[in-house]
């Protein structure tokens, strides 16, 4: 079957999509080295820099969060594939120039972690001060307790970029940036649901199969199967099932303050996202949990997969202040 996507050459997706991003946001980002997205105006000397790495095909993630107040560099891999360590090291070296240190933010996926570990070894050998934080927010269906390493990286990385980016912008130390990033990471959980598969833009194959009347909770970022396959449910029912698991996994008690990010997977309408968000908000209210901050939109997608991720994060005044700090990143502007 002919793949229906507006592309040119399935083997030139990465350079073309990056070129488009840089042309669309010339005041925020530019391309450097080999497929590395950097800020158009580098951060002032003497401040910690943030670097992330990851495969493409999840636009606007991850490169859409490069900008003042968030990331300094995004090392992009091919579609759904981690970038190799040499380019990550290239970015770390650029980032380390005139900087007291670099914070490497890595989503917990095998390939990304592998490249990140090799990069960290090389940085250590070259005496470049780098600290790494792994984002492990994605819980599995039906598991109330899990070990952090079992959790995959979903949209939670965005919250880490935001708060750690804000601390770095203040001119705080690498240790302080790491502390904030870890605090955010430890207090964040996400859960994904899908109801329609997507097409891999290089191969033209569907990335998973799902019956017409089914949905699946616990999906990974690349359409990896979850364990919660069930008949389609309404927005309210779906939000209820997912939020129950998230609140239990994070151990949220009445009276606590939460940030909720509702992330569309690529083919879910804003209409649906608002209807789901309404349900999330009502459930939290009924449980006396305070919804202190929220974001609804498409942040990290999986092509034209239909579905969404709910991310919850326990917030204190420090994290809320950093979440509110200014950012001009193309896909997360705050003033």
């Amino acid at each position: 079957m002919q793949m229906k996507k507006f592309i040119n050459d399935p083997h030139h997706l990465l350079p073309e999509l990056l070129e488009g991003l840089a042309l669309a946001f010339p005041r925020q980002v530019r391309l450097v080295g080999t497929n590395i997205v950097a800020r158009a105006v580098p951060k002032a000397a003497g401040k910690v820099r943030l670097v992330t790495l990851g495969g493409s095909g999840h636009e606007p993630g991850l490169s859409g969060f490069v900008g003042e107040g968030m990331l300094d560099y995004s090392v992009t891999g091919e579609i759904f594939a981690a970038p190799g360590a040499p380019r990550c090291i290239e970015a770390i070296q650029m980032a380390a120039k005139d900087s007291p240190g670099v914070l490497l933010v890595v989503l917990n996926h095998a390939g990304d972690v592998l490249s990140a570990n090799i990069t960290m070894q090389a940085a250590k050998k070259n005496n470049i001060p780098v600290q790494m934080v792994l984002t492990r927010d994605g819980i599995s269906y039906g598991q109330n307790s899990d070990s952090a390493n079992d959790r995959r990286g979903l949209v939670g990385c965005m919250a880490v970029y935001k708060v750690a980016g804000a601390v770095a912008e203040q001119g705080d130390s690498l240790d302080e940036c790491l502390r904030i990033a870890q605090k955010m990471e430890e207090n964040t959980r996400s859960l994904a649901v899908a109801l329609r598969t997507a097409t891999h833009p290089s191969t033209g194959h569907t990335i998973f199969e799902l019956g017409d009347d089914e949905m699946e909770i616990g999906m990974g970022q690349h359409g990896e199967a979850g364990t919660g396959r069930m008949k389609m449910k309404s927005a309210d029912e779906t939000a209820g099932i997912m939020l129950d698991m998230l609140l239990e996994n994070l151990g949220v008690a009445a009276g606590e303050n939460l940030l909720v990010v509702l992330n569309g997977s690529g083919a879910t309408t804003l209409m649906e996202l608002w209807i789901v968000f309404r349900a999330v908000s009502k459930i939290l209210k009924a449980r006396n949990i305070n919804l202190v901050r929220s974001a609804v939109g498409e942040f990290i997608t999986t092509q034209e997969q239909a579905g969404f991720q709910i991310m919850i994060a326990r917030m204190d005044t420090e994290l809320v202040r950093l979440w509110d700090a200014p950012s001009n990143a193309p896909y997360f502007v705050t003033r």
Partner: protein
Amino acid sequence: MTEEIGKFELTQMFAAAARKIREQHEYLSQLDSVAGDGDHGSTMLRVVQCMEEASHSDSTENLGSLLRDLGWSVMGVDGGASSALLGTFFSGMGDAAADKKSIDCRELARAFEGGLRAIAKVSRAKPGDKTMMDALDPAVSAFRTMASLDKNVMQAMEEAATAAQAGADSTKNLVARFGRAKFVGEKTLGSPDPGAVSIALLFRGFHEGLLQERRT
């Protein structure tokens, strides 16, 4: 009889390994489509191209730095976990290999073990997880055993290739427990891991390359 491996032998080994991969790249991609993106074959094509370029006539005669350079160029293939692991393996081999123009069977065994150690430092994948480690680990063990029995490189490589093949075959009966494939779990049963199959092809190629070198 092949007693020592120098750049000439390495070139022959890499060329034969590249032929093996080129013959099978479509099959490798097909295997990868069970649990992955279906791009393993094309990743491996780029990996073997690096192997051929690394042993090109202009490159260094120093095996340690040749293998280290190869490792970095393989990591730069950007093919996700498989190129990262193979690149790490070669660069670990380079670190463990003496900076010499030729190495004997025991030294090559130590280099292979150095490659495995380098992987263990960056990846938690273990034999039994249905990854390339299921072929690589037994191949290196077999090679080491033969080296410790004072066998020559040819005999050791033949055993390593056989062990790699058996390891790759054994992944048919395993359920993926590592990487992205683990999330499709049972679906991977009955089909071998593409990374392990690639390792078996590489070692088979290494052996054939040595045989060929002997004939000429």
